[in-house]
């Protein structure tokens, strides 16, 4: 296994499997300061307002409790376990388990399934070709473009900006169609296997270049819109370092598994982490926009990819893990395999750190800030509210 159990090493990725995972180790020790989340005591004149779990205004079922004396929000609690699903993964073979892992977060299925498969490959000592590694980068960057478009679209909605909302939705659907024609499935379900990644490259660059021009017009116009910026600037300012993905990078933190995981050859591409200092919704919005443009450049640099042989399977026992950069941040999978079956499996979702940061960042904001800020973190509840058995 290329990861080590031991003392905390590197930046903190989050809790999982009863451990605390860092960029350089798996440890029993939580990082200093991680437990220090302020617990609000209700004051006179305050009341509690429950939002969710089911409401048309939220993408997924989630319980949100807001404490307020009226307009100002003094405390927020997020309960991601209303729709907690139990996945029976232990004891399953890799093929069946993969079907469920893809569906832990269907919108980020490439990130989840590839992190899982790379952990399996680590456990079983399966080498992957350069072709497969590049095909994986292609999947991850297409998924990132689509996910960032979705978040940006949802940040325009509460501003009542119909035209950019629709145009970003149009581009998001265009990318879904690119994914569908390149991989066969709009969400990358059923396209991956150990040692293998299926995706056809032809025509992707041309389509993405057209999308890029359309996106740049919308993005730069939004960055000049005073009404829009007013809603984002100083909204949801984050204060601590326990963050992941675009939320971390918008807070001046150079956190990105593409920089330091070493599992995929991002060094051979024009990848650079988009880092900003604002720490607020505006920073998160800008980072996502810059990442879309960078992902298109990364894809263009990959060159033509050939189809690889399917099912490079290998039986055996072993323990392995893998970390990669999903659209919401570092995603980590651990597996233990015996006789080709999963004896143990757990994952760390970047959403856990980001939910915590969202709660802290909402304090002192007002109700109308809520939707912009929630959407800006790009949190997927399905990936957090899941119990692996």
């Amino acid at each position, binding site marked *: 296994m290329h990861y080590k159990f031991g003392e905390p090493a590197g930046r903190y990725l989050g809790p999982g499997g009863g451990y605390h995972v860092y960029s350089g180790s798996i440890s029993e020790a939580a990082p200093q300061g991680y437990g220090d989340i302020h617990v609000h005591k209700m004051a006179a004149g305050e009341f509690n307002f429950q939002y969710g*779990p*089911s*409401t*048309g*205004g939220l*993408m*997924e*079922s989630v319980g949100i409790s807001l404490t307020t004396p009226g307009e100002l929000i003094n405390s927020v609690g997020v309960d991601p*376990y*209303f*729709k*907690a*699903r*139990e*996945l029976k993964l232990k004891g399953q073979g890799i*093929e*069946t388990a993969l*079907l*469920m892992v893809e*569906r*832990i*977060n*269907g*919108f*980020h*299925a490439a990130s989840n399934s590839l992190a899982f498969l790379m952990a399996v490959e680590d456990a079983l000592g399966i080498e992957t070709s350069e072709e497969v590694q590049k095909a994986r980068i292609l999947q991850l960057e297409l998924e990132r473009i689509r996910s960032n478009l*979705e978040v940006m679209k949802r940040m325009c909605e509460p501003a009542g*900006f*119909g*035209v*950019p909302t*629709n*145009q970003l*939705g*149009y581009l*998001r*659907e265009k990318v*879904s*169609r690119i994914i*569908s*024609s390149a991989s*066969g*499935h*709009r*969400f990358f*379900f*059923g396209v991956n296997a150990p040692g293998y990644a299926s995706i056809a490259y032809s025509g992707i660059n041309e389509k993405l270049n057209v999308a890029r021009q359309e996106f740049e*017009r*919308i993005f730069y*116009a939004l960055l*000049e*819109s*005073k*009404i829009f910026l007013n809603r984002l600037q100083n909204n949801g300012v984050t204060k601590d370092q326990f963050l992941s993905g675009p939320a971390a990078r918008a807070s001046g933190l150079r956190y990105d598994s593409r920089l330091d995981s070493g599992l995929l050859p991002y060094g051979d591409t024009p990848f650079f982490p988009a880092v900003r200092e604002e720490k607020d919704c505006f920073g998160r919005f800008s980072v996502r926009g810059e990442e879309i443009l960078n992902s298109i450049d990364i894809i263009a640099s990959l060159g033509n990819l050939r189809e690889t042989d399917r099912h490079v399977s290998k039986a055996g026992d072993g323990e392995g893990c893998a970390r990669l950069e999903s659209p919401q941040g570092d995603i980590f999978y651990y597996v233990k395999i015996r006789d080709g079956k999963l004896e143990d499996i757990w994952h760390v979702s970047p959403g856990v750190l980001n939910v915590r940061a969202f709660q802290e960042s909402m304090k002192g904001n007002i109700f109308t800030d809520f939707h912009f800020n929630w959407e800006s973190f790009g949190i*997927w*509840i*399905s*990936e957090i509210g899941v119990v692996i058995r």
Partner: protein
Amino acid sequence: MSNFWFGEGLRKGRKTEKFPLAPPEEPPLWPSYLDGNAEPYCPTEAIKEGMWDPGRCIFCRLCEPQYKPTGKQGIFQVRKTQPLLKKSFYIYKLDSGACGACNVELGTIFDPQYDANRLNIFMTNTPRHADAIVVMGVQTERMKEALKNAYEAMPEPKLIISLGACAISGGIIGKSPMEREQYHVEIAGCPPSPYTILEALSRARGV
């Protein structure tokens, strides 16, 4: 700036397809109607005695090449229509235990390529204003009550619609949140494609 967006809207022109009056412009293969007749291994038992049940299928491709996708998007069943709702059809989504992909595909039918609003289909934020509840995902303990409350809050006449394999049959993840017979409309797929969702909702109104 508002002039800019107005101009942008005009500049882009109409992006909406004519579907369902015309064939879909870019139908996905997975999911679509599967054609085959053998008895290959299927992890959800969607193939039994040579019959394929789209409501159990998660479109995982493990039955390829015995079963092949045709690209046909009509993988839905409408057991009851509600012609009263022809002029305006408000749906309320309920995520019982979905992975997120069904959620996104339902939202996609309001994007310019599909524009569900032109077919008088709208999303509402509260079950009190809904004509139909669209159930997504598997049954989960704490969402049982939310589903029951939402259903009871809806005025009559109301339709119950299942979206995706999890809601219809439990798919590969678990148990469906309602008995299959209770649904008036079943929209198959994992997740269902926006074309399938759009046509199924349109038919549910008796159009």
